């Protein structure tokens, strides 16, 4: 069908410049990826045939879990509540850690490049060290129990939230900050009016996300003495009390689901 564009579409093609070839680069990238993955497969002892042959063993292992034992369910439920409390206070502590670090580690707010650098590196360390390692460390100071777990979670999550906060602050609209600074307001006023209203919705969403994640971490941190349901999970599995372990796992799943529902309610109400 001929349209008004026929005068442009018709006729011979213009001399097209040669398309630069990317075949070599694609080939090199594919080869590199294949070699790296093959080496990694050796390291992780990837043996799919073995999995296929012995997959039935898992069924035997799981059989014991089909009959949960509710003898100690009251104690386990209480420990789940302890776990929620660990995550709750861990998140509160992470706020106390992340807000100052996040403000100092934001390039557009930091009073000095050295302060910025220091805050960023502190957050790197807090993130790099796993919460389990922190828990082992705090156990030596405050003994076994939920307090050590809460401290470990708070410190580690503080590093994560701090980095998220400083990156959120760096992406704020500088015009809104300038509009506050231009009236002769001090630095803290610029933060209170020009920065916080802009970052609050995002940051709140990050905090809720990390709280959900902290619940999952808190449910296993008891394995290293951090208190909560994690100790019972570890203990019942290790001593082949399959029925008990099944009950603990069921409770953890229920707890995580409940917390996710509650936090998504909060998210919808607040943001």
């Amino acid at each position: 069908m001929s349209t008004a564009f026929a005068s442009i579409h018709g006729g011979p093609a213009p001399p097209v410049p040669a398309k630069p070839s990317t075949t070599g680069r694609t080939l090199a990238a594919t080869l590199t990826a294949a070699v790296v993955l093959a080496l990694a497969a050796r390291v992780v002892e990837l043996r799919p045939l073995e999995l296929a042959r012995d997959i039935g063993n898992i069924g035997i292992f799981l059989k014991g879990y089909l009959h949960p034992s509710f003898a100690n369910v009251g104690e386990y439920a209480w420990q789940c509540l302890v776990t929620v409390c660990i995550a709750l206070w861990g998140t509160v502590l992470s706020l106390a850690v992340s807000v100052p670090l996040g403000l100092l580690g934001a390039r557009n707010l930091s009073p000095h490049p050295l302060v910025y650098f220091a805050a960023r590196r502190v957050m790197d360390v807090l993130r790099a060290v796993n919460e389990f390692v922190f828990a082992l460390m705090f156990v030596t100071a405050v003994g076994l129990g939920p307090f050590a777990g809460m401290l470990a979670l708070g410190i580690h999550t503080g590093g994560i939230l701090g980095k998220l906060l400083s990156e959120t602050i760096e992406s704020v609209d500088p015009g809104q900050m300038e509009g506050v600074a231009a009236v002769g307001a001090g630095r803290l006023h610029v933060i209170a009016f020009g920065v916080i209203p802009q970052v609050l919705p995002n940051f709140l969403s990050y905090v809720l996300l990390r709280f959900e994640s902290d619940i999952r971490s808190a449910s296993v941190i008891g394995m290293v003495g951090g208190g909560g349901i994690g100790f019972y999970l570890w203990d019942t599995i290790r001593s082949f009390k399959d029925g008990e372990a099944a009950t603990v796992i069921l409770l953890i799943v229920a707890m995580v689901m409940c917390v996710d529902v509650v936090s998504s309610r909060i998210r919808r109400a607040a943001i």
Partner: protein
Amino acid sequence: MASDRSPAVTLDAVGRSFPGKTAPALADVSARIAPGEFVAVIGKSGAGKTTLLRCLSRATTVTSGTIRFDTTDLARLRGGALRAHRARVGMIYQQFNLVRRLPVIDNVLVGRLGRLRGWARWAALGRRFDSRQRAIAFRCLDHVGLLDHAWQRTDTLSGGEQQRVAIAKIMAQEPAVVLADEPVASLDLSNGRLVMQTLRRVASTVGITVIATLHHVEHARNYADRILGLKEGRLVFDGPATRLTDAALFEIFGEFVAEPAGRAEGEHQLAAS
């Protein structure tokens, strides 16, 4: 706290050059702006209008010559004195620069931040202001006709309304000089006119100096006492609107700009973009 008297603004052979650029953004600009004058700065994009305003607000510093507010040399201001200067200068921006997520009234209260002393400064960190501060803010908002929008989120307002909120914020700030950088460039003509009228009315009421860069020559003609024309960083016109002839416009803009005589409404996008 009464608004302090507008200073005489003296520009003495002002120049501003930027490293890596051969042509200076401003060169040898001299003018004396009397207290209470409403001055429009016109010129093509890149003529140095914004640089001139930024030198006056001390967002940047002149590289030659001096700018004085009365006897104070702006180049010498540091730390607390610099912040005091910023509090004395009210800024109006093309993009309004209001805190978009806060209620309108809070943006007007931002204007008070530079004037709070003692405990009130700390209370303001939690966005708490005493009844006197709030009364001032509500009166300013009423003055620009937006009292009914006080509790609305600022980004729900139209551009013209937001710019009037910015004017209310300036009124709350009680500056001695208002600097407006393209205050109506992102507004349609009728909203632009309303904002210019509001600005003019406020300026006349309190007798404050206003220096505005303007895109539309018509706005400059209608609202300014005096027009400064910049071309390639140099002052090529300085006089009342009545002396802004076709020849003068040709000198400023470097092209023939047809201005239908006696029409105040002409929508002429004059600065080449």
